[in-house]
């Protein structure tokens, strides 16, 4: 007979690996052609961060990002544009990568709280969780990181980073929509 808690633990591990791989694949898929972002590059990978938080919850979503970043550090070119290796952890975007882990955790945590409060509105709950958890923490880590590595002032680093927020809002909409369309049993 299968030990139930061991089964859950194995299932968690495989799901964590799946979402880490999904983030890698989102970096490979050519970027979605969205007309209203006017040339701002949208890497779909931050949508993967939101999805990890929404589907796996705070703890496992966090672990999925940690696994992804670990594989990046091992030298797999799985960041968008084929980047990877230890170099990216010393580059200007390192803060954003650390922010991904915090972001996935925050999305999972906020979504779980929203669900307790109002369990029927999946799309709205997921959207609020993705907007609050999937955007703010990423910039909270990303902007100081950019400022430190590129020796910029915080204001300047914030200015060049915040151009990406409109893209993030679109990704939050997509992630929430995706969760709300999922069949009950996989959600």
């Amino acid at each position: 007979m299968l030990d139930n808690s061991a089964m859950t633990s194995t299932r968690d591990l495989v799901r964590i690996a799946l979402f880490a791989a999904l983030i890698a694949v989102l970096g490979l898929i050519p970027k979605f052609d969205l007309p209203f972002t006017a040339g701002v590059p949208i890497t779909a990978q931050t949508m993967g961060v939101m999805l990890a938080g929404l589907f796996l919850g705070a703890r496992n979503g966090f672990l999925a990002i940690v696994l992804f970043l670990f594989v990046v550090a091992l030298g797999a070119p799985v960041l968008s544009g084929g980047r990877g290796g230890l170099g990216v952890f010393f580059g200007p975007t390192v803060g954003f990568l650390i922010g991904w882990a915090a972001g996935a955790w925050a999305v999972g945590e906020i979504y779980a709280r929203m669900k307790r409060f109002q369990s029927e509105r999946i799309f709205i709950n997921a959207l609020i969780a993705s907007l609050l958890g999937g955007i703010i923490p990423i910039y909270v880590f990303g902007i100081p990181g950019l400022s430190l590595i590129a020796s910029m002032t915080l204001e300047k680093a914030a200015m060049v980073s915040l151009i990406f927020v409109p893209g993030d809002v679109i990704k939050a909409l997509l992630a929430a929509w995706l969760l709300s369309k999922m069949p009950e049993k996989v959600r």
Partner: protein
Amino acid sequence: MISLYISGDSWMHRQPAGAKLLAVLALSITVLAAQSLIWLLLLLVGAAGAYNSLGPKGRQRLFASRFLLPLILGLGFAQGFIVGWEAALRATLKIFVMIMTADLVTATTPTQAILNCVERLITPLCRYIGRDPRKISLAVALMIRFIPVLVSQWQAQREAWFARSNRKPSLRLLTPFVAQALSRTDQIAESLQARSPTSRH
């Protein structure tokens, strides 16, 4: 596996993985604090020389990272106008030195050696909290295996779309993609568990 590792037997390849990782960490901390332009330039030349010593593949690698150039030079120019050219040059040099040395370790250390190094590092911690450190290797292996699986699943679903429609696939395709991936995950978990029911993966 797809990897940024370059196989070879240079002096860099022969250094132990742990020592290289420590060295790159120490160097980066020093570089972030460094102020002297001369020193930064010397470090940059030294890093380029290290790539050169790896032979033709090393030189190729040095030029392969040029996709980073626009980003870093763009940052440099933006800063030049705000904080002055000397500070901008210093910041740009620092970024180049740090990225190049870290990437040098990636290029000369097999993935497995880094993985073993990390496993050794966290084993005491894992014992303390009662977890199996081999879980990490399993998770890494699973993730790397999932990437081509997901890509071929995406392609299969695109083909299925084209069989039914002559329009471009819409984002609607994402729903069955994620749902199918998740249900496949549960099958994989069951078969993993069936093979080793006693160990807690």
